[in-house]
């Protein structure tokens, strides 16, 4: 907890400044909606994209901050295992990310509600209005999870690259880039293997969407839209995958990294 508190303290100023910026953006979105301006949707996209990138930028910034402020001599000489050093940084920025995303989702909910109240003519059927809000409410936890997963993937990839660079300089970073490209290729080429992980359906977002709007399920197939399903198998796989990556980080920090 001491390390976690230290990391929170180190990053909290940037976190609160960012929340200030996001608040300003939410107010702009609200204002754009009242003006019936399309900017609102662009700003919503900016907020979503910022959250996907948030974790990797914050994690990397915190890690790189030790070198920037020359405190890496102290940090690397702390007699704690490497995994604790790196997960305390992750835990601090991850908790900030979760708070920020929760705030963004709440702001999204208010914006949507405002939009539906202000412009009932856009969605003339009352039933549809309620459905849209209801879909947002029921899908929110899963959208939250999906964005977190996406953000975590970016975060782990970038921290892996940084640690490889610190351990083996440019050769390490080049090897890291190849590893990431290779992994992406493997996941797309061996799709069949990854399909084996698709067991234990937790939620089917596509189905939820069509059910909420009372649309026939056949329609999504006709549209060629893929089902967006969260499986227990996939979730378990990624949890193990992240644990393996943390073990690699631990090894790199304790054995290979150079100050």
């Amino acid at each position, binding site marked *: 907890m*001491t*390390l976690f508190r*230290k990391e929170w*303290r*180190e990053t909290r100023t940037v976190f609160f400044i960012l929340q200030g910026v996001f608040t300003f953006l939410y107010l702009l979105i609200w204002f754009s909606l009242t003006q019936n301006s399309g900017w609102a949707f662009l700003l919503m996209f900016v907020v979503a994209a910022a959250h996907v990138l948030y974790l990797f930028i914050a994690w990397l910034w915190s890690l790189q901050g030790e070198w920037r*402020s*020359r*405190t*890496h*001599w*102290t940090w*690397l*000489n*702390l*007699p*704690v*295992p*490497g995994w604790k050093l790196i997960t305390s940084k992750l835990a601090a920025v991850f908790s900030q990310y979760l708070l920020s995303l929760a705030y963004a989702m709440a702001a999204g909910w208010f914006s949507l509600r405002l939009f539906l109240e202000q412009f009932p003519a856009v969605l003339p059927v009352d039933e549809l209005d309620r459905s849209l809000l209801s879909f947002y409410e029921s899908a929110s936890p899963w959208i939250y999870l999906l964005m977190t997963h996406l953000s975590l993937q970016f975060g782990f990839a970038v921290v892996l690259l940084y640690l490889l660079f610190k351990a083996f300089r440019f050769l390490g970073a080049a090897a890291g880039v190849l590893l990431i490209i290779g992994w992406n290729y493997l996941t797309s080429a061996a799709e069949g293997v990854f399909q084996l992980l698709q067991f234990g359906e937790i939620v089917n977002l596509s189905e939820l969407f069509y059910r909420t709007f009372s649309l026939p399920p056949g329609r999504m197939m006709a549209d060629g839209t893929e089902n967006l399903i969260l499986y227990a198998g996939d979730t378990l796989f990624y949890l193990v995958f992240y644990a393996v990556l943390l073990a690699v980080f631990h090894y790199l*920090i*304790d*054995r*290979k*990294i*150079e*100050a």
Partner: protein
Amino acid sequence: MKIECSSVTKKYGRLAGVKELDLHLDRTGICGVIGENGSGKSTLLKLLTGLLRPTEGTVTIDNAAAARNGAVDTAYLSEEDALYRYFSVEETIDFMSRIIPDFNKETALGMAREMNLPFQQKVKTLSRGNRARLKIAAAASRSAPLICMDEPLSGLDPVVREDILQMIIRYIDMDKQLVLLSTHEVREVEPYLDHVLFLHDGKIVVEGDTETLKMERQQSLTDILRTVMNGCG
């Protein structure tokens, strides 16, 4: 504390920090690592604490390869201001005591009090001398068998330097701990050193017990350093 370096070379790009360095040290007390700028003093200390990896050769501390996870047994004090700037003096000591198992909080607080360090002041607002004093308090409060102090006296005024040397003498357990103290302020540290390593051009050129060396050569450490720098070690 047994230190073994065998044919250790550390390169930074094409330049070598240390070259085929051999060292066998099995003792406690204060050992001066002396040499001119660029002689490889800092590189040697960083290799011993696992903060750098040798390009060639092996470094072992008590028969285990030196690595960062050996920080339980090896404390490192950087020549740079490496303490967290947003902590106050008191918070720095508290942080260290919570994280480092061999850190003696009472000793650190006692040292800070003795040196009149302002407990509530943030590290970033401390004077250079007080930052150096705090660094020493943090390092000397550890009971790790090996403490590497990289240029702890560099750029400080004589009063602070004297304070620091006195603290090291008073708070280090000379029977259980080995302090490797790198410096080029030879005249000042001479009375405090039990053992010395003279480095020149990345190699240890002279090594021995301080008194024995001085007797054998009939020279002060400053004169030995001068001889070493002229390449006649």
